[in-house]
């Protein structure tokens, strides 16, 4: 693995998804963003788990991206940044 490649993982609560089509759209849309390595959206748990490159994306930019799509995205950061 490339030692310069950094990887972070974040879990974002997503409210407002009701069917697998919503899940699919989010996965497609966010998965295309630069710096996103992998995304898994769970309809039952109402969250999105994203593995990303912190040099290109932050938890906040991805939360905004989901919010922009019209879903309620809430960030649960274990280490809140002031």
């Amino acid at each position, binding site marked *: 693995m490339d030692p310069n490649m950094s990887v972070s993982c974040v879990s974002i609560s997503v409210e*407002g*998804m*009701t*069917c697998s*089509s*919503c899940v699919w*759209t*989010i996965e*497609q*849309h966010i998965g295309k963003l630069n710096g996103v390595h992998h995304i898994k959206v769970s309809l039952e748990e109402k969250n999105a788990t994203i593995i990303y490159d912190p040099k290109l994306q932050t938890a906040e930019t991805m939360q905004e991206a989901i919010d*922009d*799509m*019209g*879903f309620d995205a809430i960030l649960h950061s274990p280490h809140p940044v002031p």
Partner: protein
Amino acid sequence: MPKHEFSVDMTCEGCSNAVTRVLNKLGDIQFEIDLPNKKVCIDSEHSVDALMETLKKTGKTVTYVGPK
């Protein structure tokens, strides 16, 4: 105000709620969503292009039907 009709590929209430939210964010707009027919009728001074961009944010397939 000009009325525009769009066809948006919505499959469930979650989809139409998402459309509602992005349109409300744009502001200065009135619209009706017809979920069974997958139509969104918008009453706004915004240009068709601006409305189109907003609807596309939801990640769904959007086509402009025409003025109404």
